[in-house]
């Protein structure tokens, strides 16, 4: 009977378990770690550096060596206080369910995943080409205009539209060159000649309505067109050149696309690593 009991695996298991319990309860190398605060020079140096948010052991060693006894005692007291409070907080489980702590740890993990250098990315021309094809919209270039204008200001006694119309009714005025045009009309607050300016730039200076009206004009180097209105008044336009909005060829913006592509690959790589991590978990959604 006793022999049978002694051969019982469950008893062996319980006996080994008891030994382990005794060992860890009384002989573990970490025995008492929870209620002993050890003040090493290393601890103090770390403590100082984190407090100053500056890190250089040699400098802080020197600083510590120069401390008076009183300063050193103060530093040790602060360290002990922090350490005791921290450990008590852990015992109370205050680190659990704390969003800030959780966020911080996640951030650390993301930093680890970010550490991915350019050199490990190899680019092949075909995939760059297809990246460009998929992301063409990102490289959109606005329409551009080159023109001169003669301006009639809104706040004169006669209406700007009447004055503008009367002005161009004179045949001689219809033949005015761009450079001669400076002497005619009212003072304009910005420029009289615009060269290869984007619609966005022009709408800043003239207003949205003007942009739309200008877009409707066709290029004509010798004919004053209009008058068209802006937020400032009426304008006769000599539209010397315009280019439609376009998406430039890959060749002309190659290195921009390359940079974007590398950024894209890095992001993809990081996401891949995160997905890999998630795979090791079984996720249960219980809403």
């Amino acid at each position, binding site marked *: 009977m006793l022999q049978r009991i002694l051969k019982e695996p469950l008893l062996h298991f319980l006996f080994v378990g008891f030994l382990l319990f005794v060992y860890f309860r009384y002989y573990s190398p970490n025995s008492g770690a929870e209620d002993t605060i050890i003040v090493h020079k290393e601890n103090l140096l770390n403590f100082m550096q984190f407090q*100053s*948010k*500056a*890190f*250089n052991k*040699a*400098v*802080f060693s*020197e*600083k510590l060596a120069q401390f008076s006894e009183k300063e050193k005692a103060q530093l040790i007291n602060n360290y002990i206080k922090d350490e005791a409070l921290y450990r008590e907080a852990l015992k109370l489980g205050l680190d659990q369910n704390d969003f800030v702590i959780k966020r911080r740890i996640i951030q650390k993990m993301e*930093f680890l995943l*970010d*550490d991915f*250098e*350019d050199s490990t990315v190899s680019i092949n021309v075909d995939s760059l080409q297809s990246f460009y094809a998929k992301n063409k919209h*990102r490289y959109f270039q606005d329409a551009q205009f080159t023109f001169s204008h*003669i*301006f009639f200001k809104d706040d004169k006694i006669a209406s700007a539209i009447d004055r503008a119309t009367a002005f161009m009714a004179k045949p001689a005025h219809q033949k005015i060159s761009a450079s001669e045009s*400076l*002497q*005619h*009309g*009212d*003072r*304009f*607050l*910005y*420029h*009289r*000649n615009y*060269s*290869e300016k984007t619609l966005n*730039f022009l709408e*800043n*200076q003239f207003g949205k309505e003007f942009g739309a009206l200008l877009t409707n004009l066709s290029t004509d180097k010798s004919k004053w067109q209009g008058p068209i209105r802006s937020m*400032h008044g009426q304008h006769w336009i000599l539209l010397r050149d315009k280019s439609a909005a376009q998406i430039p060829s890959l*060749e*002309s*913006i*190659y*290195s*921009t696309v*390359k*940079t974007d592509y590398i*950024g894209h690959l*890095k992001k993809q790589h990081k996401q891949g690593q995160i997905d890999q991590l998630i795979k090791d978990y079984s996720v249960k959604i219980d809403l």
Partner: protein
Amino acid sequence: MKFHALILCLFLYSCTNSTENKDTTTSATPKTISNKEVSKNPNKNLYWGDTHIHTNYSSDAFLFGTIMASPDDAYRFAKGEVMTYPPTGEKIQIKRPLDFLVVTDHAEGLGTMLRARNKDPLLLSTEAGKRLAKIVEGKPGIPMFLKWLRAKNLGQTGLTEIDTGKVMESIWTAHNQFADDHNDPGKFSAFIGWEWTSTLGGNNLHRVLFTPQGADVANQFLPYSATHSPNPEDLWEWLEKTTEKYGVDLVSIPHNSNVSGGLMFPDDKDSKGNQIDVSYAKTRAKWEPVVEMTQIKGTSEGHPALSPNDEFANFELWDILLKTSGGNTAERATPNRADFVRYALQDGLKIEENLGVNPYKFGLIGSSDTHTALSSVDEDNFTGKNLIDGGAADKSKPWINDVLHIDFSSSGYAAVWAESNTRRDIYDAFIRKEVYGTTGSRIQLRVFGGWDFDQKDVEQSNFVDIGYQKGVPMGSDLNNTGKSVRLMIHAAKDPAGGNLDRIQVVKSWLADNQTQEKIYNVAWAGDRELDSAGKLSPIGNTVDLKNSTYTNTIGSKELAVVWEDPDFNAAQKAVYYVRVLEIPTPRFSTYASAKLGQDPWTEKEPVIQERAYSSPIWYTPK
């Protein structure tokens, strides 16, 4: 070296952090070669730019982790490309592209961090290079910076060896290539330049330098650094020799006189203690035709303590010296005439009276001095001094000790009147001083000085023609004489900004060898009237602090005037510059607090009146 002394040096340097690493040899977009002649406008066009920005070629920026921000990125961003902003990961883009840019990385150890990091064999063949490579192992940040600074203070970084050696030739050549690749005559001017970073005894004597020529010319010499000499007199001597020897044109632009500890604009002794003489005055005036008066580290126009009658003098001041006596507070400058542009213009008249030459005959610009490589100083799109203050939530935190990120200023830009957007034409405008500065707002400003303007002239559609015919543009001397100085001034609001409040003329003159100043309100919005002292009531304020918005329901979109000096005395030397003020708009710190849904931080004024400062016009009795 004491810890505090290490920390103080942080002021000189900026902190950035980013996790990306960028190939240093990325070249610019291949350009199609065009033989198209760039057309010139004799009446000059207005171009906007920044002559002062840093990238990962600056040791300080690199050590704090601006690994991603190369000169290539700087040009791309300025041209309008969308970038990823490291502090927030958000997309960032300049709202309106710039027309020109000078990348001015610190010459001291230029590009060596990047080379050390990439284990460049040429750099590693030097003893100093080997040491640097050890320093830059691991993650950039404050610990790495301190390691480098310690080595530097022990003389172990071998800056002298590096700044003058083969390695620097190779780095300088690479740096210059970025500018050449991005230069696009008629569309965008990319200049080769650098910063000479002399901090004599913690006093800021920094200058940025640039050339209108390309790498073919610039590669013949190495950039002159403070390692060669920390004295500006030696820099000028080098300029004299180098320009002569290599046929290169160069210009030197002092900045942050506000923290020069009284050394930037001396009226008595030079930086070596020698009496200022004719040669000093001539040399200085020759090499330094322009001063950068407003930037992220504040305004250097004047000081309320020294100009008590200027109610707008207390504006975006910065007094944090690049040194400290220790402790947890920054060491602050005490107001000193030699630290500010207005008094330098005045003392220049006085020195001219005694020596016959005015060393301080300079024009004015703004620029950013950002260490992020991203030059955007719009209040609602400010990229910051360093990348660490980029996120809205970080703005109210201390940068270091008792200095907050919101103590910086979202400023400024250089505006240039030039015949075309080419390196040469823009450079020539700097030499002519037909340039002006703004605090970031794109206020358009024209000033002409003369004797015969009448009020009708400024109303003409071709008032610019009249300006050049009857007078001289900003930055010039009035030749001959007349009854009284007249200034024809035209200002238009930033098309995307606030309306204008007023135009002021700041006049300084010499009476019985005493300097005097007076500020005249000469044109303003609304139906306000001057009081007996010539003061004008405030324009009002439409700013909604909670949402950080304003309306253009007050102010004017355009102000123009022909002003005649009512106190003109033909026997007195005088200098005039124009200051244009916008209506109050939200400060960048207010945009940040609004983004967080908070009230503005109380440490700073929540609204500012953006401004433009013209280059001066001088009158000298015959």
